[in-house]
Structures are given as structure tokens and as C-alpha cells.
């Protein structure tokens, strides 16, 4: 969802329960530069990284009420990078003390025939979009600032339009289940981005 393909993420084979901790916010276009400056100061010293990705969301409908969702993402500016397949579970919303959104996640690197294969499995494409933005890291935390583009002609990533006048800002950590101190660290970091951006735990179900 927010990551460029697996070249950016550690491949953690073998652990069944990896959870993604997530905080989200947005920043208007005209304040983007200030945010980038601040992030460059706060985050690990690395080459400023930009990414341009194309994500396609697939659904598999079964007898269960909710369809199974898989996200296939490819990099449009890095040739030869593998495709990134991602499964995200339902967010665990119960704990008020937990400061971040927590959900199960499985990340898989695949070859390029992923879309054909998913169709063969019975998945159908639901929607797709293009993301373009910047990537920062601080320790195990990953911060992405990106703009979402709607694809006007299905399958054609050249004709796109921006979805809004803001950039989406996401702070995420992928860690084994049970490590709740992670959300405290995330909250402390989020404090340092105020008042430019308000990163908070947003329940997507509220927005349906």
C-alpha cells in the first residue's frame, strides 16, 4: 500500500504473524517542501528517495460476506524490481491505549506475471492507482509522503489525474505481533511532525 516493491522492505520469511502498525495524515501541496525539510532533518541520513508505483487491488469473492483482498504493486521507475504482493488483514481496533492502527500483513515478492496468475486463481481487479512520492526511514519506522493518482483509462498508466490537492503521509512499521512499544515510538515521532501534519490512527471503516 505505501511501500515501493520489496527492494525497500525486509523479507521476513518464516514468521507467520507480522503486523503492520500505521499512522496516517496528509499535507497540502504548498506545505510539502516544509514537511520534506523537516523529515530530512529528523530521519536517518540517506539519499532522498522517490518512488513511482502502480498498485492494483484484486478481490476474490467467495461465499464469505467480505471478499479476499490482495494488493499487487510494481515499480514504474525501477526496472527489474520484483512485484510486491501484499495481504492486509482487518485492523484490530479494540485497544484504546494503542496509538497506531494494527493489522496483520503478509508481504511477498513475485515475478512479473503476477496479474495473470491472480486472474487464473480467480481474483478480479477492483481498482488501481498510481502513487508518486518520497520515502524516509528512521530505524524500523518508514515514512512515506505520496500523491495518489487516479487512472483514467484502465490499464494505461500514462493518463492519470491527481485525486486531491494533498499528499498522503504514512508512518508505518512492520514488526512481529505483540510488540506494542512500537506504537509508542511512533507516537513520539508523530509529535515531532506537528503542527505541519497530524498523524493519527484512522479507522477506514468509519470512512466507508
Amino acid at each position, binding site marked *: 500500500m505505501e511501500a515501493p516493491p520489496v527492494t525497500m522492505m525486509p523479507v521476513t520469511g518464516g514468521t507467520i504473524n507480522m503486523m503492520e502498525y500505521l499512522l496516517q495524515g496528509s499535507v497540502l501541496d504548498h506545505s510539502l517542501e516544509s514537511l520534506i525539510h523537516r523529515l530530512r532533518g529528523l530521519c536517518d541520513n540517506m539519499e532522498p528517495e522517490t518512488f513511482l508505483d502502480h498498485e492494483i487491488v484484486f478481490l476474490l469473492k467467495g461465499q464469505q460476506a467480505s471478499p479476499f483482498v490482495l494488493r499487487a504493486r510494481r515499480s514504474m521507475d525501477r526496472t527489474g524490481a520484483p512485484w510486491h504482493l501484499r495481504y492486509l488483514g482487518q485492523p484490530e481496533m479494540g485497544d484504546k491505549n494503542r496509538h497506531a492502527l494494527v493489522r496483520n500483513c503478509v508481504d511477498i515478492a513475485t515475478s512479473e506475471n503476477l496479474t495473470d496468475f491472480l486472474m487464473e486463481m480467480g481474483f478480479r481487479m477492483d481498482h488501481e492507482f498510481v502513487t*508518486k512520492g518520497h520515502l524516509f526511514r528512521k530505524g524500523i519506522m518508514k515514512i512515506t509522503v505520496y500523491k495518489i493518482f487516479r487512472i483514467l483509462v484502465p490499464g494505461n498508466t500514462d493518463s492519470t489525474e491527481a*485525486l486531491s490537492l494533498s499528499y498522503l503521509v504514512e508512518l508505518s512499521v512492520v514488526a512481529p505481533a505483540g510488540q506494542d512499544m512500537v506504537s509508542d515510538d511512533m507516537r513520539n515521532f508523530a509529535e515531532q511532525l506537528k503542527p505541519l501534519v497530524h498523524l493519527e490512527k484512522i479507522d477506514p471503516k468509519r470512512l*466507508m
Partner: protein
Amino acid sequence: MQREEKQLEASLDALLSQAADLKNSLGSFIYKLENEYDRLTWPSVLDSFALLSGQLNTLNKVLKHEKTPLFRNQVIIPLVLSPDRDEDLMRQTEGRVPVFSHEVVPDHLRTKPDPEVEEQEKQLTTDAARIGADAAQKQIQNLNKMCSNLLEKISKEERESESGGLRSNKQTFNPADTNALVAAVAFGKGLSNWRPSGSSGPGQPGQPGAGTILAGTSGLQQVQMAGTPSQQQPMLSGVQMAQAGQPGKMPSGIKTNIKSASMHPYQRTLD
């Protein structure tokens, strides 16, 4: 013993580098304040504060780290004091401490505050203990009440004054945008592949042939993918008039889109 020494060395190194970073940021901040004070903007100052705050946090983390031995248990004793210039010391402290003498040592190796200050502190603590729990509680509550009153007054003033109005233009984010973007990424709100004609995208409802307008202007909207900084082309130059008064507001077309996109699998209620 060996291990502890190594730990001590390692943590000292970490502390040194953190402290050096902190000193550099402080230095650049002071420089900024002294030399660019006429051009300085509040966001820039905030940035510097945020940087300092981040570095202090990291410093704290290094200190709290379990591998860091208790520095409290280490004692520093000056072995030789001399009033002569010490070149090595000069070099190590970047010219700040030229002499390791009787004047320098009490300040640099201090572990307790001045005797006068210590006396004052002791005085204050005995005073505080003398008051008694109930009275102390009451005083605390009074203080809290006064603080909240003051805060309320300040925020009311801010809202009503002119400067409040000016500041809203400086808003850096729009909560409605946040919600729209999160919804788009979470379940494709506004991105559905199946687009009903006419009410898609930022087209205004009621505009005749909005679908064709969209198709026609998609050439204008083609965003340059390569190397565009934060500048984005205006969404629909033709429709700017309706949006000019609300910078950053989500075009209402999106909501219309959802109303008619009844095929969306996630939808249970059409709102």
C-alpha cells in the same frame, strides 16, 4: 571487566557523537537567529526546534539504553592541574578550553550545584514539606484552574482576532483531504475502475457533458511524472472558478461519484 570497559567506551562514543550533532544543530540555529533574524519565519524556527527535539530524544534513548552503564558510578578525578596552555586539550575541545587550571576544573567537572544554590533548594524543599498534604493539593488545583482559564482566554482571543483569520490560510493540512486519501488507499473510494459517465472526478455535478470535458481535458491534466516537485497542475483549469474560494477543499464531485458507484463491493449503505 573487559566487557564493561568495552561497553563504557562504546556508549561514550555514542554519547559523544550525539552531543556533537546536537551542538552542531544548536550552532546553526544560533547562527540563523543572529544573522538572518530579519528574514526568519516561524516555520523555519519550528523546524530547528523539531530537529533539536529529535536529537534530544535520540540522546535520551542512548542514555536509557540497557547497554549503557550507569555513568553515575564513574568518578572523574583531575590528576594534574597546571596554569599552562595545553595544546592537546585545545585540539580536543576545538579551542574552547585552552588551560586545565584551577578556574576551569570546578566548572567542567562539577557534579553538584553551587553551595548557594544548594542552600536555596534545601530551603524550598523544607518549605514545601512544611505545608501539609491538603493545603498542597488545594494549591495545585488552584494553579491548574488558573492555567486552564488562561488557556481558554488565549484561544478565545485568537479566534476572535484578525490574526486568527490570517492564520487559517497557513493551514498545512486539510482533514477532509486526509479522510478522502485514506479511503482511497484503503478501499478505493473515488478510484473505482467502473466510472459512471458525467459525474466522475472533479467535474461539477450538473455540468453538461462532464464526461467529455473530462476526456478532453485529460490532456491538460497529464501530470509530468518525472521529477515534479510538489507543484501539481491545477486539477481542472476550467473548473477553477468554483474551487478558488476553497483552497485545498476536496472537489464535491468525489461524493457524487460514490453515490452512483453502487457496484462497489465494499458498500453497504449509500451515503
